[in-house]
Structure formats: structure tokens, C-alpha cells
């Protein structure tokens, strides 16, 4: 309860104690304010695992905000980053000291586009829980209600990818796909046990080919891109009306309006409490979505995929929208035909916030390498992005786009102890995570077979406990 209370301001539910179940009305008189709906009915129960005070010394430290320290030190204690500095940093009594010469220390990688748990391994029909493709607008569904915490993909993302937090999104069949959830990459028995405490919800929206294909093939709207936008606008008109009704009720009281889960999510967006992550490939479509957002008074936190972001990077910069991008995916459908390897570098160079994302259970294991490819393509195009700046694509920019940068995403004193020690330069194909801490707890250690997670599904199966 304390944990839930701590996050309420973020979610805008001021009176948590008065949480109601759907449909209840009150007769509290015209001038007394209405009762607030519980905005957090599935609260995080995540609790950090214990860690030991640890000093990593002699490493190259990339702090995730563009800083770099050669022969640097990082002290983790009490689940937090305690201090970051040079060789002068000393270990407190009883701390573990790791001599990390030749290795790199970074903040944990944050993947803002994952379907782990919703499209888990094995990818069977029974496990396919990522697209509620029954209506073009399903903002009422929540990705967390599909997450299978036993997906072996979480453990691979940890051990091979150094991923310490991730956003699980619904799929892109729908214009409004539903709410996303941000997870700590610490498998638990329940999804609540993985939820990033206090992380805002996201709303997955989608442009382009997917919604028009899924519904067009059923002979229903939308069948075209113009149908996509019309449907989106109609839905926002409903949301505005719903928001107004509830604003009035919360201010003036009276008869409680009927609850609508879909509209509750959209209301959260209009109130700035839920962040829009918009799947869009083409430059022209992204520009239209920016106008839609202005028309209805909400903000887009990120364009996801943004294969043509490089064509409108100035627009993204001017509107404060991050591009969550791939290093080199292209051409698998028409809206990705103009994908280029320089997309991330060009978009970054234009001053927009850029993020390397995966959308893939394999790609999430190699996001550091994807960033390396993006740096290399940029350098060949005359854009020199340093390693330390490129790491912002992997930790601080993702954290900013998810609204959790005050707690993670960089190596700064007081932030969560989400830290990766790499066994070499993480921009090399030859490098792997050596150790990974989440909230100061050592959860992967390449040298320790005991610190190699095995999901329920893998127990007793061929290859159980393998390095993977």
C-alpha cells in the first residue's frame, strides 16, 4: 500500500482511499467533489532483491547521459548507485570490489518496445496475447494482463542483452492497441511482481498498414490511411466528451458518469498522465499524427519504428518527440521500404531524441550492438557520435520517453542500481555482459552458474541451465 501510495501523484488519482469498483454512483450533493476512480488497481508489488555494497574499479564508465570516465569507479550500495567517479573512490568496509580493467560499466539497457510475455517463447497460438484485434480501437486493454512472466525471453534479455527494464506494448493491429506496462527485468510469479514502481502507463497507437490491413481485410473500417485517421479522430472526439463529463463530476460532484475503460485510458492521455507511444513508419504519417495530437490536445512521447524519421527529424525535434528506431531494419513492407542504416544518426544529428529499440525477442539481446551499427553508419556519413553519447540511445533517452528518468537510465548517485559490467567494449560484436545488477542485486553473473535464471517452462527440458 505504501508503494502504491507513493506513485499516486504520478497517476493523478488524488484520493486513493476512495477507490471504487465500476458502476458505483454516489449521492454526495452537487457541490461536493466527486469521488476519484482508483487509477492503479493492479499495483506493483515489485521489491528489489538484496544486494551487497559493490565497488567496480578501473573500468571505462559510460554514465548514460553522455559522460565518460576512463579508469572509472562505480559504487553500488543500498540498491542505489551510491557514487560514480575515478580511482579515488574507495570501497566502504565489507564491500565487494571488482577490478574491471579493460571492461566497461554502463547503466542497464532499457528497451522501450518489447512484446516479451505477450508474444512469448514458444510462439504458439496459445501464447499469442499481444493484439486484441477485435476492434480498431481497444484502449481498454492493458498489456500487463497478457504478460506471462515465465517467458524465457526475459532471461535472455538480461543475460545477453544487459536489459534491466523494458516497456511491454500491445501489438500494432489496432489504431489504439491498449496500455503498455513498464517492467523491471526481474522475473516474478506475477506480473505485478515485475512492474516498475511508479512508472506511468503508456498508450500504444498505430499508424499505417497494420490497422488498415487487419480491419480492411475484414471489410470494415479502416481500410485506408484516411480511414485510419478518421477513426482516430472520431475516437478522440468521444474521449474529449468523456473527459469533460468526468472533469465536471470530479469538480462538482453529482451523479457519477458511467465508467468506460476505453475512455479512461484516453482520458489519462488527455490529462498528460498516460504517454502516447505511436507506431508509425512513414515521415508523412508521423507529421499527420503530430497534427492529430495538436488537434485534440495531447502529446506524443515517441514514434516507435519511425523508419523514415530521418526525413522529418526537425519536426520531431521541434515537437519534443523521441524516435524509437531500429539500426538497420528495412523493406519487409512498403512503409519500411525507405529504411536506411543512418536513420538513428541523422535523427540524432538533427537534435531529436533517439532511442534504439528492438520489437524483437532476439534483437533485445543485442541492442548494444545495434547502437554500434548506428554509430558506424553515422560515421561513414560524416556524423561522429561518441560511444558515451550513443549510450544515451540505450538508457537515458528510453527512460525519458517512459517517464522514469528520475529513477533510472543513468549512473547518477541516488538512482536505482541498474548497472551492467561488460566483458569488453559493448560496441563490439565480441562483447557480452559480464554481470548485471538490478536495484543493486546481482541477477546475472557470467562466471557463476547459480546466477543463470531458468524459467518454469525450461525446467526439466533439454538444455536446462545452459549458458544460452
Amino acid at each position, binding site marked *: 500500500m505504501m508503494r502504491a501510495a507513493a506513485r499516486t501523484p504520478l497517476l493523478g488519482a488524488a484520493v486513493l482511499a476512495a477507490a471504487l469498483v465500476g458502476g458505483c454512483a454516489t449521492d454526495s450533493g452537487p457541490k461536493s467533489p466527486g469521488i476519484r476512480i482508483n487509477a492503479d488497481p493492479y499495483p506493483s508489488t515489485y521489491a528489489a532483491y538484496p544486494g551487497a555494497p559493490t565497488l567496480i574499479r578501473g573500468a571505462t564508465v559510460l554514465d548514460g547521459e553522455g559522460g565518460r570516465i576512463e579508469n572509472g569507479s562505480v559504487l553500488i550500495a543500498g540498491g542505489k548507485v551510491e557514487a560514480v567517479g575515478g580511482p579515488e573512490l574507495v570501497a566502504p568496509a565489507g564491500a565487494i570490489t571488482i577490478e574491471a580493467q579493460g571492461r566497461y560499466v554502463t547503466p542497464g539497457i532499457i528497451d522501450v518496445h518489447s512484446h516479451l510475455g505477450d508474444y512469448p517463447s514458444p510462439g*504458439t497460438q496459445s501464447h499469442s496475447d499481444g493484439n486484441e484485434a477485435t476492434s480498431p480501437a481497444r484502449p481498454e486493454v492493458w498489456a500487463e494482463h497478457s504478460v506471462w512472466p515465465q517467458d524465457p525471453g526475459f532471461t535472455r534479455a538480461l543475460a545477453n542483452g544487459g536489459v534491466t527494464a523494458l516497456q511491454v506494448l500491445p501489438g500494432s493491429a489496432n489504431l489504439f492497441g491498449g496500455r503498455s506496462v513498464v517492467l523491471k527485468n526481474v522475473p516474478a510469479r506475477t506480473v505485478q511482481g515485475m512492474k516498475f514502481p511508479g512508472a506511468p502507463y503508456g498508450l500504444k497507437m498505430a499508424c499505417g498498414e497494420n490497422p488498415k490491413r487487419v480491419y480492411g481485410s475484414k471489410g470494415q473500417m479502416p481500410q485506408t490511411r484516411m480511414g485510419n485517421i478518421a477513426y482516430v479522430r472520431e475516437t478522440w472526439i468521444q474521449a474529449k466528451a468523456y473527459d469533460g463529463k468526468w472533469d465536471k463530476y470530479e469538480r462538482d460532484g453529482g451523479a457519477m458518469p458511467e465508467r468506460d475503460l476505453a475512455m479512461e485510458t484516453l482520458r489519462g492521455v488527455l490529462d498528460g498522465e498516460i504517454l502516447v507511444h505511436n507506431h508509425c513508419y512513414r515521415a508523412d504519417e508521423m507529421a499527420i499524427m503530430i497534427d492529430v495530437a495538436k488537434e485534440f490536445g495531447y502529446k506524443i512521447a515517441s514514434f516507435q519504428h519511425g523508419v523514415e524519421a530521418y526525413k522529418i527529424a526537425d519536426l520531431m525535434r521541434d515537437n519534443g518527440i523521441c524516435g524509437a528506431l531500429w539500426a538497420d531494419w528495412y*523493406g519487409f*513492407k*512498403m512503409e519500411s521500404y*525507405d529504411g*536506411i542504416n543512418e536513420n538513428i544518426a541523422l535523427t540524432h544529428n538533427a537534435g531529436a531524441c533517439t532511442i534504439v529499440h528492438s520489437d524483437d525477442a532476439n534483437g533485445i539481446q543485442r541492442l548494444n550492438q545495434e547502437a*554500434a551499427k548506428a554509430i558506424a553508419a553515422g560515421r561513414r556519413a560524416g556524423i561522429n557520435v561518441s560511444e558515451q553519447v550513443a549510450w544515451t540511445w540505450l538508457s537515458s533517452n528510453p527512460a525519458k520517453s517512459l517517464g522514469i528518468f528520475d529513477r533510472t537510465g543513468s549512473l547518477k548517485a541516488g538512482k536505482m542500481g541498474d548497472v551492467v559490467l561488460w566483458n569488453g567494449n559493448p560496441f563490439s*560484436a565480441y562483447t*557480452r555482459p559480464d554481470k548485471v545488477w538490478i536495484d543493486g542485486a546481482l541477477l546475472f553473473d557470467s562466471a557463476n552458474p547459480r546466477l543463470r535464471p531458468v524459467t518454469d517452462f525450461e525446467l526439466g527440458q533439454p538444455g536446462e541451465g545452459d549458458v544460452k
Partner: protein
Amino acid sequence: MNRLLLLTAALLGSASPLAAQTVAITNGIVATGDGSDPVQGATVIVRNGRVTAVGQGIAVPADAEVIDASGKWVTPGIVAGFSRLGLAEVDLGADGSDDTETGGSPFSAAIDVAPAINPLASTIAVSRADGVTRAIVAPVAGRSIFGGQGAVIDTGSDMNPILRARAFQFVEMGESGAAKAGGSRASTFVLFRNALREARNLGGGGETISGRARDPQPQTDDVPYEEQQDPRLLGADIRRGDDALLNRFDAAALVPVVRGRQLLLVHVERAVDILNVLSLRREFPSLRIALVGVSEGWTVADRIAASGVWVIASALNDLPASFEMLAATQSNVGRMQRAGVKVAIGMIDDNDTRYVRNQRQYAGNLVGLSKVPGAAGVSWGEAFAMISSRPAEAVGVGREIGTLAAGRRGDVVIWSGDPLELASAPEAVWIDGVRQPLENHQSKLRDRYRSLERGVLPEVYRK
């Protein structure tokens, strides 16, 4: 470097058709692709489209164009170990751009991908710009477990992509094959046996069930390749049983397979499926088999090694993505290699049209595994061989491509650095001794949108 740039500019400005040149690439860090470590300061000579000499202290012919590759790496071109390169431009929602779909065809084994390869596809140009000079191209199985006949192609900027048509017959024998054969693996194997028996009957017998495993055949270029099908197989006088399941064209296409004159490339992942496929040679002793996928290969690596068959493996599968890959691990390739299995790397079910250029990243990752306690990595030389000579050898064209050695085709790449590293890129590419353009749709888009400043004309005028 300056010299390279000048040469590029000269070629781009030239209107004459690309032709094989005599080239001497000197002072490079040369990796020949045969599994050995790279050699510093070596020279590669290419003449008349072929490599004529490689090594240190090689004399440079007087008429050669000399390219100083000091500080650069020089290798054979990358060979895509398993791909659909050139078959599809766009996979989804782009009518007319995709020739991988054959589910509506009345034919299966008889299908030949060669005429479907579009040498001007953007995917070929993009792959070429990343140093991929050759590709093994497999059909996608449609209505049958037999997908048809795949080709080995080059990625050259010309209209002659085919190095070897009908290089192999492709068959799905795992989960995917089971679905096509009626639902189960049991139905797959009876369908397979029936088809090969029909082919054997059509081919005039000649082989009997030996009941014992045959010695593995050498899988090299020495095995004759049938350029033309035996016309007797297609004649009107061939009598067939009333219960024949294959149409005559498909059955005829399997005759070279059952006779061991055409390689059978088998997609299989699960350990028991691998063993069942290997045991097919008890009934069809002439079969020449290579396996692709093979995610659980490490669990039966000794048996694969003993069989002598080639494996073209997925490099980094480590998720139980399906029930036939529960044992998937990135140590699969390293463990198989240690056990003596002949291994190449391919992109099976991994965006095999566009990701072929990432084979070198995957190979680098296998090298990186050597540093992970408990994992099985591979050496640099072996990793590079797995994306150059090994795939070529696996499909019987190892004497033509995949290595820098006298007599091989002149497929050479000069890299800015270690080709298995993420920062490296090709600076020059030759195929059959012809210097290749590296420009493509992507590089031109990059140049068009390098600046977003509004100009005197719209962007569409920037070419």
C-alpha cells in the same frame, strides 16, 4: 584510401560496361576464408575474373591496377549460407514483389527458383554494399514438404545472377513439414518415402534398399551435376501406378535426388528429427543430405559428425521459439564444430531476404562466446569461414567461391577494418573480378536527406 576513392569516382563516372580487370590488392590484412587466421601484409591478384595468387611476397603483374590496402582487411566476399535473396523485394502487402509464395502452384519439387531471381532487386544491391557477393537461395515450401530447387547466385550488378541453378532440392522435415504433410511428423516421413519411391520408379530403379547406412558421399564439386534432366524421365512411355501422388514433373525432379546427383537440403531443428533424417539413407542410400536450421544439433552432434553431412545452422538461436527448439543455445554452432560437424552459418527463418548482411555480426558474436564461461565459441578464422567457404562447400561450390585461393572466382572485398566487427564496412567489392557499384536505394536516400534545409527546389530534385 585516396586511391580507393578515386577509383570509385572513376567507375561511377564511367559509361562503359563493367568488365573484369587485372587487380593487385597489396599490403592488406588478408583472410582467405579457409578457416585460417588473417595474414598481415599479403597481396591478392585477380585476373580474368579469377584469383590467381594470394600471399606474402607475391609479384605484382605489370598490367595490374595496384590498390594499396594498407591497414585494411581483404577477404573473399561473404556467402549467404541460406537466404531468399532476390526472390522477394517486399514481403508484405506488395503484390508482384514477392516470388516466394508457391502455395497456389500445382507443382512442388519441380519448382526452380532461378528464373524468379531479380538481380536488380534493392535487397541484392544492399547486400552487395555490405560485402555479400554470393548467396544460397532456397525456395519457400508451398503446398508440399518439397519446396523445389534452389540456386547459388552472385549479387553482381548485371543481369546474370545464377552461378548454379538447381543446386539442391529443399525439403521441410520439422514442424513446418509436418503441417504441410497433413499434420504430423509421421505423415511427413511417409510422404517423403512415397515421393522418393515414385522418383526411383520413374528413374528406372537401379537402387535397392540396402538396409544399412551407406558411406557418406563426398560432397564436393566432383559430384556430377545434371545440367539437363534425362529426357527419358519426361517421355510419354513412362508408365506409373494409378496411385501416384506426385505429378510427373515433380516426380522427375526428385530423380536426381534419389540418385544422389542433386543435394537434398533438409530443414530440421529437433534432435530426433535430425536423427530420423539421417536414417533415411538406410532406405535411400544415395541421398546426399545437408541440414539447415539444426537448433538442437549440439545434443546429437556426434551422430551428425559421424554421418559426414554438412550443417547450415542458425547462428544465435537461443530461445525455445517453438517446441522443436527447446534446446536452442548460442553454443550450438561451437559445440557441433568441436564434435567434428562440418558447420556453416545461414539465416534460417531470420528475415532471410534482408539480414544476410548481418551474418558477419552473428559470426562475430560466435567469436565473442569464447569469452563467456561455459559457452562454446569459435575462433575468428573458423567464424569467418562459416560465412564464406563453409556455405559454399556445403552446397558443392567450394571450388568456385568462398575462399581467396588461386583458381577461385574473383570475389574480393576490401573492408575498413575487421569484417566481423560492427564498425567495419566494405570499401570496395569485386565479383568475378568486376569492380562493383556500392550505391543503392538506401545510400541515395541518405544523401538526399542528409540536410533538411529547405532548398530552392523540393527534395525530389536531389538525385
